């Protein structure tokens, strides 16, 4: 089984389109998802939704993990690996083969960032994470962690225990811990971006949501209307 190396880009042509939204907490991913799905369907592209931690198989395990502050990072890495593989085998592969646009609300990037911030060995992580399918395009929502804190608190009040990195003992104060932890995640994302290719698009998530959405749609239109994709779909 080979590594899912970021720098290698095997042929991506499949009838469907695999779109990934990545970014730390409070970058407005769910807003973007909410705006994107109806737009795709209005334009005649059937879309399905997946995401890190969203397999029915592992849902209970993640809930239990969240409630267990002493649970460790290697367990998390293996739960993510099982969760992603269950979704690949359960729906992603077949949906892409059927020509759907599959949108992931976080995927391997977030699993990498969260585990590596906690000291999980990157080589081991690559060996256990599914190596396929690779995203056709990844939109990385980037925003200042302090700005994200405001958004996160507006949404769910106090930041989650691990989303504020309190398991890492970064700061006794949850708000300061959130900002520090999110900055650490950003650093991991920056490393991923450095090894990524042209299919990794950084977007300024500090901009108004409509503008971010516009850029995502432009990027998708470009791909969806590419002649070789039309040809692949017609086969």
């Amino acid at each position, binding site marked *: 089984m080979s590594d899912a190396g970021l720098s290698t880009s095997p042929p991506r042509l499949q009838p469907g389109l695999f779109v990934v939204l990545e970014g730390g907490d409070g970058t407005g991913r769910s807003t973007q998802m909410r705006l994107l799905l109806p737009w795709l369907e209005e334009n005649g592209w059937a879309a399905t939704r997946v995401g890190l931690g969203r397999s029915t198989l592992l849902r209970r*395990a993640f809930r239990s993990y969240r409630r267990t502050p002493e*649970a460790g990072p290697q367990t998390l890495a293996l739960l993510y690996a099982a969760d992603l593989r269950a979704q690949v085998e359960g729906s992603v592969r077949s949906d892409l083969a059927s020509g759907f646009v599959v949108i992931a609300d976080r995927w391997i990037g977030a699993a990498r960032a969260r585990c590596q911030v*906690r000291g999980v060995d990157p080589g*081991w992580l690559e060996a256990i994470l599914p190596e396929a399918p690779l995203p056709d395009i990844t939109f990385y929502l980037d925003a200042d962690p302090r700005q994200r804190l405001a958004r996160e608190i507006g949404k769910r009040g106090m930041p989650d225990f691990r989303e504020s990195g309190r398991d890492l003992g970064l700061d006794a104060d949850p708000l300061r811990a959130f900002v520090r932890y999110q900055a650490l995640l950003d650093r991991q994302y920056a490393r991923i971006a450095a090894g990524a290719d042209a299919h990794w698009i950084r977007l300024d998530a500090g901009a108004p949501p409509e503008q971010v959405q516009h850029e995502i749609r432009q990027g998708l239109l470009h791909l969806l209307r590419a002649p070789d994709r039309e040809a692949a779909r017609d086969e």
Partner: protein
Amino acid sequence: MPGLVAKTQSPAAAATAPVYPASARYRGRLIAVEGIDGSGKSTQLRLLLRWLQAAGLPVHLTAWNSSPVVHEATRRAKRERSLQPLTFSLMHAADLADRLEREILPRLRAGHIVLADRWAATAFARDAARGCDPEWLRRLYAFAPRPHLAVYFRVPPDVAVARIQGGRAELRYYEAGMDLGLSPEPAESFRIFQRRVAEHYESLAAPERLRTIDGLGPVAVQQEAFRHLVRRTLRRREPLTATDAGPEASTGAEPATGEWDE
């Protein structure tokens, strides 16, 4: 992280602080039993536990697939018969990782004895029998320290199958290897699957340094042989005097937690 094979380490890995110190030497002792279903290993481990408890030693027993974080998900997936081999494999690894991180390593660091009913060789044998790539399995379990003593209870698969069928009304779906389509008949599928797993165990004995005990002998005779091996393993365990609960410093003595690479 202990036991990560060198070739999986990228330059970036060196820059990341490992979760567990590399080549950590824990003061406690990890003792595992391995073997196919019906080999009698759990009975032997229970007798060992009683003996160690009676001797007043700090001892703890941990069983395969018992992590409270992972267990419920695995149970449901098995019930729905929806598990693909690789996902199945990852969930078992998550079970071991959770028990290792919260249940096993703290005790080993504190100098206790941990008895494990099944360890990584179980995954190597069963998952390989399900068609997982052995090399991938080895990398997957690179996080698990090698036990100080791992004992393989060897029984002919047909004997083990007869033992299980004598004591249990119905074979479970995955236990019988029904997911592999070996036979539409559960008992026959179970026999074929157990034979496959047994073959894998036999080939694992040497590379995994499994000590073999004949599982056909009388229970008391097997237990005597087991205790003999355990006595030797415990002789190398440091007395419980130091207050430091961290991994031992490197002393060049017998390695406590080895690595999966040879």
